[in-house]
């Protein structure tokens, strides 16, 4: 049984954006040496997300536009207060809620050393509160 965990850093450049990380995940699978098993991808933040959808710009725009409609910046959020454990204020509740609704992880099977996914499926890291340096985890398990 092989279990391999990679921490991958990326730098977002906008307040909100979708970044295609499919190639990076495929690469970690290849390097792991696992022939048959699973790959889990997990975003390690709470104001960013990770989701799988068709990789086209119109959908990228729709996701951000409609998440913003669901959780407008100007809404009344309890999170808007001083966070004494953090030394700063929390006013990015909209980003946290988008992360909750959009999810932070995905899982794909590995067969014969290759990640198995639908031909149109793209794995996205989603920034809701950038720009920031971010980290996501790729864990490969199998034989």
């Amino acid at each position, binding site marked *: 049984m092989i279990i391999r965990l990679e921490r991958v850093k990326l*730098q977002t*450049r*906008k*307040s909100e954006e979708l970044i295609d990380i499919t190639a990076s995940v495929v690469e970690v699978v290849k390097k792991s040496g696992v022939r048959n098993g699973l790959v889990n991808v997990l975003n390690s933040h709470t104001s960013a997300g990770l989701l799988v959808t068709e990789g086209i710009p119109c959908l990228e725009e729709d996701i951000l536009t409609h998440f913003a409609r669901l959780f407008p*910046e*100007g809404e009344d*959020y309890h999170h*808007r*207060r*001083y966070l004494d*454990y*953090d*030394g*700063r*204020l929390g*006013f990015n509740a909209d980003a946290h809620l988008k992360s909750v609704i959009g999810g932070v992880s995905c899982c794909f099977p590995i067969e014969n050393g290759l990640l198995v996914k639908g031909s149109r499926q793209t794995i996205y890291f989603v920034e809701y*509160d*950038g*720009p*920031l*340096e971010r980290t996501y985890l790729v864990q490969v398990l199998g034989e």
Partner: protein
Amino acid sequence: MIDFHTHPVLIQELARKYPDYERSTREVFYIGNNLQPLEIFFLQMDVAGIERAVLLPVDCRRARKLAVSSNEQVAELCRRSTRFIGFASVDPMRRGAERELREAVNGLGLRGLKLDPALQDFAPGDRKAYGVYEAAAELGIPVLMHTGLSWAPHTPLQRCHPLLVEEPVRRFPKLNFVLAHFGWPWVWDAVAMALKYPNVFLDTSCLYYDSPAEFFQFVFSRQIPTTLIERSLRNQIVFGSNYPRVEIKNMVHALKSLNLTSGCLEKIFRTNAERLLQARVPEKKTRSRKQAS
């Protein structure tokens, strides 16, 4: 646009180079956010539409054993990018502070003085501090003085009242003082200082509850009337974000959400800061008129 109030406390490159840097960030400045590459600082400025940012250190070695960024660290960042405007900090209670300030300005190229009476544990009106004010006046640099509530631990509120700065402001009429955080919660006291003394400026880096937009709406339209800014103080306010306690973009958005004219916003976002950074002395005509009344 210029951000007159930022703290370079979360920069990975400095944390790798200086062993005490992160400990000071966590224990003295007190913030829990992850360290970030320097490029993130520029990207945060970019998304906010900010071209240049003033970097503020605090020399609180006597009071807190560690400085919150040093003059050398700030100068190092300024050498990396012309988008940074570095301020110095010296401890007014320490012997040699004047010489240290002159060296920071003439040697390191820093362009202002940051003082924090609460974090540095001194009274702004203490005569021992006058040497530093005198040196700053001679150098023609502004003094950005912390006033208002500080989130840093062990910083008594009573050290942060804007009126504590009145005596130095009166004694050094050629020295420009910027009262940080609009003096919140003593906003009217800070406003009174700026109304009375032409060498007093206020920065907008106040955010203590709610969102930046909500807080600004309350402070700048209900706590004081927006017209007070538009009509009376438009030449004495500079934009400051207090990044990284708050992202710059949110503070820019909050200020723009107020019912201020574009001319007034231009002064707050740019012209007043440029004047402070270039001026050797406050505008003579305005000062003599106001001081006579």
